[in-house]
């Protein structure tokens, strides 16, 4: 079952003093996110990640296209009852304590007083704000505000959680906790749709990723398939080879890097691998490792970003 589907979703913003020019923030986005998955929307700053999220939540309106969330049109705000959302750098009510704030959010979902009490207590513990439950949010650090923001996104026990840059402003410990929280949500069968430009987070969490650049979808798919798709080269690590052997090996390797006693050879052509290995064995060199070098998410991301055309700006005629 699809949790989120966008069809030709497009957004133009008016710019300029007379607002007669258009800047395309999102261009014909077609995405399908299966229920229960962790989906990462990746892209550099200004790629259209936040625009996608705000479109899905009807905070801005599309120029063209539509979307469906949990089988319902995104126009139908009743679907918001089954959705949670953490905006980027959330601003919460400074005068409220986390308890009061979460209680207010619970009221907006129509939760009963007993249910609110239970959920608020549970979430405050879960995001690590138990010690600060009576401190006004205005006195919170950025990381603590982020935690309170995460708690409000989960107050209704949502089926789909939208998180806009959830790790932003968090220290390594906080990032680890958010990662664990996302994985726990996945284990509960929730769909998590999050935007990030921190690739290690996406690599650690996502089942699927989509890469946006200048508002256009550059690539989308199963993360493990993407990363397992191409073996860019083979890495051969040898223990202290003799200079003569190394000279012989040089013709088969694209690069040779010595680190201490070890030498790392990068072999670009697959057919060169047995030849290099044979030379090493003939010279009695100890082979430390032989491994294929797979494309990292960063390599994939950079390749996609580099291949993307520039932004689209058009003037109204």
């Amino acid at each position, binding site marked *: 079952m699809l949790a989120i589907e966008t069809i030709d979703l497009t957004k133009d913003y008016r710019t300029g003093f007379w607002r007669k020019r258009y800047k395309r923030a999102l261009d014909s986005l077609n995405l399908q996110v299966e229920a229960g998955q962790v989906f990462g929307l990746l892209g550099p700053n200004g790629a259209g990640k936040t625009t996608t999220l*705000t479109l899905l939540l009807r905070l*801005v309106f599309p120029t063209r296209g539509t979307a469906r969330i949990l089988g319902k049109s995104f126009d139908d705000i009743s679907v918001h009852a089954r959705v949670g959302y953490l905006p980027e750098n959330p601003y919460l*009510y400074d005068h409220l304590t986390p308890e009061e704030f979460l209680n207010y959010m619970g009221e907006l979902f129509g939760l009963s007083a007993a249910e609110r009490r239970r959920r608020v207590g549970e979430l405050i513990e879960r995001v690590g704000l138990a010690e600060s439950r009576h401190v006004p949010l205005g006195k919170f650090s950025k990381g603590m505000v982020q935690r309170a923001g995460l708690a409000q996104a989960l107050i209704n026990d949502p089926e789909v959680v939208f998180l806009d840059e959830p790790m932003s402003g968090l220290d390594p410990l906080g990032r680890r906790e958010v990662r664990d929280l996302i994985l726990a949500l996945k284990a509960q069968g929730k769909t998590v749709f999050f935007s990030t430009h921190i690739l290690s987070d996406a690599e650690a969490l996502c089942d699927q990723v989509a890469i946006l650049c200048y508002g256009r979808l550059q690539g989308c798919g199963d993360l493990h398939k993407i990363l397992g798709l191409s073996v860019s080269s083979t890495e051969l690590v040898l223990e202290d080879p003799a200079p003569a052997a190394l000279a012989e090996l040089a013709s088969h390797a694209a690069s040779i890097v010595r680190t201490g006693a070890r030498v790392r050879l990068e072999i670009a052509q697959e057919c060169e691998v047995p030849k290099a290995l044979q030379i090493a064995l003939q010279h009695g060199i100890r082979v430390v490792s032989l491994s294929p070098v797979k494309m990292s998410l960063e390599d994939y991301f950079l390749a996609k970003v580099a291949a993307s055309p520039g932004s689209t700006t058009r003037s109204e005629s």
Partner: protein
Amino acid sequence: MMTRVTSIAVHTFKESVRERVLYNLLVFALLMIGAAILFGTISVGIEQIILVNLGLSSISVFGMLMAIFIGIGLVSKEIERRTIYVILSKPVARAEFIVGKYLGLLLTLLVNTAIMTAGFYGALLYQKRGLGLNDLLPLGAIYFILLQLAIVVGLAVLFSCISTPLLSAVYTFCLFVIGNFLSDVRWFGQESASPLLRGLTDLVYYLLPNFSDFNVIAQISHGQSIPGYLWVSNSCYALLYVTVLVSAAILVFEGREFR
């Protein structure tokens, strides 16, 4: 639906009672009412007229200032601080948000007017050393002040959806002042020979909020009661005008985008 509107209204009330400007204005209003006793003592024979006149005027002016100062930031502050993102991502219709905000501010003004009314009656009791049935007359004027405030809050909420807080304050204040002189504006047009000017003043008279009939402070201070038709016409006018203003605010807010 009602739960969400009530919840937003209660939250707005709690938020606005934390505004320092509210307490400053309230203290000033109570001081003015207190000062009315002083003015009364130096006005031989018309002490009560002075007290009622000054007391009710203070309630009206300070109530209006509270409505403007808090009302203008009501929606724009939520947008500026981006708390609106969190609210509108919940199953909250934009219309519910606006109505909740409006009712919350109205509740704040109702409570503050009640406090100022208590201060006013305290001053009256101090001056007269006792209250009679006739002293209930100012309550009619206070009801009309509340109706005016309901319209001013509607204006403030509408402008708050369209413009910056500063401009919203200017627009609301200007309309409040113009609204108090609308009858004179129309009279001026009718006296004119130019049909264009007559048409223009008529248009302004019917389009802008007309507060002329809401000001009964002078009559009340002279012990005259409010005619029955005025109770009905003012109540209906305020209800209609508030409905139009809040509907316009909703219409504007429905089309707003939050980037």
